[in-house]
């Protein structure tokens, strides 16, 4: 799966988890940019990404994510491994 496909699927995940259809993802986007993205919704986001892409993240991996770009890269590594 390339970064573009991942971003498209990830957008749907964001819309569902954050309950907002107007979210447009960018690589530099982080929790600071989105009111709905707090520590509680972050856990649902990670669980939903794991479900959607059929991957598992360690807590260390989750902790190292700084923005959406990092997340896409991580998903890409896991799904193309």
């Amino acid at each position, binding site marked *: 799966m390339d970064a573009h496909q991942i971003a498209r699927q990830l957008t749907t995940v964001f819309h569902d988890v954050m*309950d907002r259809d107007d979210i447009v993802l960018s690589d530099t986007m982080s929790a600071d940019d989105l009111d709905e993205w707090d520590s509680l919704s972050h856990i649902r986001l990670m669980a939903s990404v794991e479900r959607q892409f059929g991957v598992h993240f360690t807590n260390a991996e989750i902790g190292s994510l700084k923005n959406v770009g990092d997340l896409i890269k991580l998903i890409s590594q896991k799904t193309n491994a």
Partner: protein
Amino acid sequence: MNVLDFRLENLPWLVPAPAHFRQLCRTLEDSPTATERDIRHLANYQLNIDQLIRLAKLIGSLRPRLVRNASFVDMRLAILSDTTVDYTIPALVATAARFGVLLEVVHGGFGQIAQAIFSPDSILHKTAPDAVLISQDPRGLGLHQSFISPKSGRERLASACAQIDSMVRVINDDLGVPAILQTVPPPPEEWCGSFDRVAQGSSRQLCESYNRSLTEIASRNGNLLFDAQHVAALVGYDAWYRPSQWTNAKLPFSLDLVPLYADHLARLLAALRGKSRKCLVLDLDNTLWGGIVGDDGVEGLRLGNGTADGEAHLLLQSYALQCKERGIILAVCSKNEMAAAVRPFREHPEMLLKEDDIAVFLANWEDKASNLAQIAKVLNIGTDALVFVDDNPAERERVRQMLPEVAVPELFPDPAYYARALGCAGYFEAIAISEEDSLRADFYRGNAERTKAVEQLGNLDSYLESLQMVCVIRPFDEIGRSRIAQLINKSNQFNLTTRRYTEKQVGDIQADTSKFALQIRLIDKFGDNGMISVVIFDVSSEVWACDTWLMSCRVLGRRVETAVLNEVVSAAKSHGALRLRGRYIPSAKNSMVQDHFGKLGFSLLKREDDGTTVWELDIATYAAPDVPMLVQRELAQTEPAV
């Protein structure tokens, strides 16, 4: 649905949510006329955690302006937990709507169990919840560890049990409400392996012993057990316990299992509020048996031992019979000629269900939604008490559209799974089983026969005489307590004030000398109707005021209420009271008794703005009418101090 999709964690008896579920929520949020029915429609879908949270948000925003046109009951639950319940709470609010409960949850604060319980100004003591859930994790209780010394294990266990016992006492005695105690699933990690079941200090043993202690605590004061261990076992302890979500966020179990957990807990809350379903309505062709009786004939049906398909249909029949044994009413609703529909019941040797087991049998070509409404009407129950099992997706869809309050399990194309779907959906959750339950299904069938009898006799008085009724009137006692509480919480139609009391409160009323409370049983020639009426009066020197007067609708029109009034008047008179006062508080369902007191000879005192009416009866001039039954009084113990 594919076989592989039948996974309990997905609640496979529910219809998958449409892709535009969030859009549906938003549309409803903007609607000025949103109803309980609309919410029920949405809650009936298979929802994941994100969708449940969305629906909870919707319910929260609609709550103040919701059109209360259906049958939701309000409930406030306090949750005390030593783990993260921020996901469970909204999931529970959304799921409760599926069971007809408009739920509000108050949370004692993360890890604040003891503070919430023992500090009198905590949220728990301030908010007057209807019940308190204590949701503890084995890791919070220290039961996840194994001990080489059995003594140390026992000490750990004793301290966990003592702690919960003291908390339950505060909840029961100070708040006066039931506690809901959550059992603990054992962690999957093994200590010795199979020997863990033998070793007294093993975590597995400690969890089991703890759960047994909870069962004992739950057996008193109307407390309830929430068997989370069973829920975990349904999907497996491996799926239940997600170590990464525990270390990351102190989630007690997998986030993916929140919908399953919430569904099980919501059933229990609904049962506590008397919202469990009462009647199982079955389709016939390709549901109760394989094949179409009108086309294939009795001989051509696939039913019975020997073939896989034939045995699959027996599984459903057998499950239905088990339901009937604990008081669930069975009914049939089938598009068929009546003559053909009854033939397998009479002629097929492998049929487990007999005609006698079916309280209402409707086989015709009418619309099934109308037939279901008719069944509810004949049985005198709400359509929200029905479960409808039909293999035909079009019929299911039609019923769901017309009557969203009827539970219609999604069936998966293999009949071997019909009973599984029905049996795991939690429609008939019970919090206690009484002897009355086991007889109830027969009462209803008896009623159908009584209806026939009145047609033959034609005259009500002679009909009532012919019933040879015996009415047994007795003060509240221990034996009757759980059934009294059940009636108080379930009766909606013949219920003057719709006041709900827990089993514990019923016990308090029994002990309270300023209350005069009676339980009434009715027996007739068709059978024992069991306890069918409850009255509670507040006793004072001049006026006895009616707090509660309710009756089961299956004995309507039998003049039991007159017999009861005669008893109350006679008791009040002997204590020197001058008047009885009655109050009718209107609810969505009790309009049938709006003139109850008037019919009994009370005069209207006043009518309040909300429709409540207050009535009085002068005891001195009351002439007790004859009643068409033998009244047996067992009033020896009632000596209210005035």
